[in-house]
């Protein structure tokens, strides 16, 4: 059994999805790496921003 924290799950999800997005959505190796990093940052960044928003709304 594997019990990651919510944030660890977000990071793992972002990592795997970003790798596939980078490879499939760009043609050159450089473009793949750049787009993969871009997707990873957006995934994790959006999760952090939305988490803080929900935290502040819930207070």
């Amino acid at each position, binding site marked *: 059994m594997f019990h990651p924290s919510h944030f660890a799950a977000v990071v793992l999800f972002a990592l795997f999805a970003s*790798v*596939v997005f980078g490879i499939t959505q760009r043609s050159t190796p450089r473009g793949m790496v750049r787009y993969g990093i871009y997707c990873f940052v957006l995934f994790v960044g959006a999760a952090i921003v939305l988490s803080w928003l929900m935290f502040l709304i819930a207070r």
Partner: protein
Amino acid sequence: MRYSQKGMSTEENKNAVAAKGWVYLPLLAGWLVPGAGHFLLRKWGRGALIAASIVGMYGLGIAMQGKLYSGAHDILDILGLVGDLGNGLLFVVSRLLGLGADQVQVTTADYGTRFIVVAGLLNVIAAVDAHNLRTGRKS
């Protein structure tokens, strides 16, 4: 191709070798086995990364006791089943071995269920990418 390049390991010759065979084979192979479509086209690095990502995501989903959809009782179950079927043979073998949970009982199992569904959807994207490489729509 110049005459002097005939039979040499040029990019053009590699693509010509990869372009042989049934046009839908990379699409089908990529769906059944993650990364296989790219391996057939000799895109070893891309195939390995895709296989590691999708099998890793699927494996973590199973390890988190994620649910494998077996039937279609409502629209959400149908969508979940469609996503799971995107995993190809991984889903079939897991069902045969009785892996995954029947019901979600803990929070991490809910994450696991999403991991499994998204792994299937990513696998479909990767299989279509292999098809695009095969047809020449993508280089």
